[in-house]
């Protein structure tokens, strides 16, 4: 996964003498700190993607990086680094030969893309949108200390949630997982899982959670007095109790750090979770369910300190 800076690879294809000349030239050029050619590739339009691009541009404004924006459907030329925004961009960028940093991609989606070419030796990395299982469960415990049983509804489309179930077990909580095999049975499966759990934890599984089922799921959960925990701001607005997520700006900051490090070291780290995150709470729903959640910032600082403790002194 981690490899040397991309531009040295293509030198193999050029005759030796020419290479020397070019290398010489290049070394003079880099000595003058030649800018890294980075393109932000966004094949799809989404407001989150636009926010990322905007923030990323801002973060790198004063760096010696030649940043181009590529809001098209294809990549015509080679770059020193492609920052691919979103899964569609990632899938196109990975078909080129340039190093790629994928952002605003799900872990499951990204890993599925990599399956296609395991032999790929260039620098490829990602910052996921997913939150680490431990973080999710830490937040759940901090926000809802009385919760003992966590319900999880999933379908055959579901991303892998072993990490989440490990984190749940580690906290000595009970996980009640219920697979729902068809839309017809969703209602019954939902009722079963709601009956057996104190909280329903939504996962990015569009077999269960999609725009046509969410109304029913939220109403049913509310009727049974069970809060739903989401993973995006839209969930909170729809009626979830709270969501843990990273804003595009937060990911942009992390991506800019990785880009600068790449400029310095020629290496990309292993795919990683976002470091910074946010929690939004639906106060109306919390009040209605009689749940008192400490102020966001209190909660966040508590969680951040817990994570720092876990990471140990840096």
């Amino acid at each position, binding site marked *: 996964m981690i490899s040397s800076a991309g531009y040295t690879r293509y030198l193999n294809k050029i005759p030796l003498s020419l290479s020397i000349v070019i290398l010489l030239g290049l070394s003079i050029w880099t000595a003058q700190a030649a800018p890294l050619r980075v393109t932000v590739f966004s094949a799809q339009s989404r407001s989150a993607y636009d926010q990322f691009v905007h923030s990323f541009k801002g973060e790198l404004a004063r760096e010696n990086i030649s940043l181009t924006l590529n809001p098209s459907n294809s990549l015509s030329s080679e770059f020193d680094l492609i920052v691919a925004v979103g899964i*569609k961009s990632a899938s196109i960028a990975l078909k080129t030969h340039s190093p790629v940093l994928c952002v605003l991609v*799900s872990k499951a*989606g990204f890993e599925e893309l990599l399956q296609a070419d395991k032999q790929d030796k260039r620098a490829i990395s990602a910052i996921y949108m997913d939150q680490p299982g431990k973080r999710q469960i830490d937040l759940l415990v901090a926000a809802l200390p009385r919760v003992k049983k966590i319900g999880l509804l999933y379908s055959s*489309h579901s991303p892998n949630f072993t990490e989440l179930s490990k984190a749940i077990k580690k906290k000595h909580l009970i996980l009640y997982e219920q697979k729902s095999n068809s839309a017809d049975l969703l209602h019954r499966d939902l009722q079963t899982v709601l009956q057996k759990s104190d909280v329903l934890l939504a996962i*990015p599984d569009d077999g269960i959670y999609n725009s046509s089922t*969410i109304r029913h799921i939220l109403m049913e959960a509310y009727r049974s007095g069970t809060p739903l925990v989401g993973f995006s701001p*839209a969930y909170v607005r*729809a009626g979830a109790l709270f969501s843990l997520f990273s804003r595009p700006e937060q990911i942009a900051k992390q991506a800019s750090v990785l880009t600068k490090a790449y400029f310095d070291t020629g290496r990309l780290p292993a795919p990683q979770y976002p470091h910074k995150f946010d929690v939004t709470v639906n106060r109306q729903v919390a009040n209605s369910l009689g749940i*008192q959640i400490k102020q966001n910032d209190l909660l966040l600082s508590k969680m951040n300190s817990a994570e720092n403790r876990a990471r140990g002194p840096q």
Partner: protein
Amino acid sequence: MLLLSFLGAFPCLAEESFDDSYFQALPVVLTASRLSQPLSEAPSAMTVIDREMIKASGFRSVPELMRLVPGMYVGFADANRPVVSLHGSSDEYSHRMQILIDGRSVYMPPFGGVHWADIPLMIEDIQRIEVVRGPSSASHGTNSFYGVINIITNDATAQHGGSVSVSRGYVSDASARFGNTGEQLDYRFSVGYRSDQGLDNSVLNDHNATRIFNLRSNYHPNGTDSFDVQIGSSNGVYGIGISGRPEDAFRDTSSQSDYQQISWIHAWPVSDETKLTYSHNIHNSLDPYLCIDSGICQGYYVPTTPISQGFTQQSVFSQRNELEFQNTNWLNETNRLVWGGSMRRDYADYELFLGHPYTVNSWQVFAHDEWRISESAILNIGTMYEDNGMGNRNSSPRASINYHFTPQHTLRFGISTATRSPVMSESFIAANNTIWGGAYVPPVNPLVPEKILSKEIGYIGEFRSLALTVDARAYIDQVSGLIWWDKYVELTPSFPDSFKNLFDAEYRGVDATVKYHWSDGRSFGVLNYAYQQASTSLGSIPTQYYNASPDPLNPNRYSSVGDRVRQYYNNEYVAQFPGLVPSHSVSVLLSQSLLNDLQLSAGYYYRGRVHVGDVGSDVTPENTMRRFDLRIAKTFKFEKGRRAEVAWIVQNVTEDNYTKYGTVNAVAEVLFTRRAWLSATIDF
């Protein structure tokens, strides 16, 4: 490569689905008006009767469920005519309660009461009932006087697939329901038949049969707008009559009730919401053989006047159109303002009593702010201003503060006011009406709205780790200008009765509810207790009070006409008034789940002796009620989540038969005896 590019062009890659989930725009589902307030933050004392209580109680009507509200009086004039009111017994129409079904007011324009028997509502379709035990005009609109019964039916998303239910035994009920949810449209509909033989057909003709249809659907074309449409209808046949009373002959009345309601809800950013509702109700009832002159009906003038001339057909038609606009705005993080207004047009055609049709156009505006002063204090402040369409304008302010000493312990101090406008049958009696032989005449002075001022202090303890809630309060409610029959008919036969703002009254009481869940929430117990006291005094002194002329009828007993009037009011009203409320009442509901598929529930209902309002002191009072009900249910589970339930319900198991509501002794002495039925439900 070709394959790759083909895959790349494929619009929906598997890996995209996970990612789409993160960015998916979702509809705003739990908008402000769909959320209920928790007990500890409600501005008034509130009882919530939820599905598990409804089921465990075995009750099949809303009035009976009201036994689970501390201090609520529930009586039955006969099986078809329940009387439900806070602050004790009332006349048959219990004018002083607001009854809402999904925000639609269902008390009838001509009488102000509710014809509970034919409301197009099935108990299985009720999601919960919130009963506000105190005036609440700022939140629930006009007529929220002694309290509000706010019935919330299942949302359009609540029914999935079909369900059929049949009950046999003392009752003959059947119902079927079906529902589904979709991307843009959710719906549920139900049809039902409800019937029983009543209380005691040897004395009362109170058999009944009601057919009900309901449809609720929700259309949500986008993420921020939704349209909730409800249509319902009922028609029924209700026996009426008392044996041995020719003026109350056994006969069948019929009635028809229809409603349509449409609400548009728009969700604005930051949890703001606008809701616009239009509703339409009609109610039509027919009594084919109503006695209008008891002398003729009883055959006193036979053969000169044929008996049939003493009877006529009574038809009452009423209609309500209402348009309501309600906005919820978050002024800032801690201030939520709910404001809006409504216009209502009530029409009634009750020729026999009112002479000609009447239309009353009323309007109201309201505003209510919930301000979280700090993490532990919530101030609720609001008012309603109304024009009752009968020449009066009133405002009904309210303020309360809920203070959470700890998250578990909350104290509530509240002060609240409301008005009750006179209803058509009080204000618009026709001078030449023929009903009851013209025994009632229009009010001498125009009636003005009754007013109530309620002061209360409440405690709410919510111990989540113990699954225990405690809710207790003490209150003083002061009422002025109570509209009552002015009985100067008793003095001179030529002066019939009419309504008058006659009394001031005071109600004091203490009530408490304890709710506890165990065995993982599957078993529960609820205990309600209420202690009540009532007293009254004459608010406006009748002019005859000062009449010094000798009493024309019994000069030996009464020193003057004024003395007779004083004695009459003192003995028949003021002295009787405290007896209208039961001093003590208790209800207990326990539900224990056994072996995973058995549910055993028991209800115990105690109510002290009550004297029915508006009747003479010689009518038999309702004696102490001690009633014990049982429900045993077994659930069967089949593949694909299908399930069935068989339940056996026995009411008044111990045969501790008690007397019931009655305005004449023959009725007041009918006993409520033991009854049982079996009920089976299949969900598929």
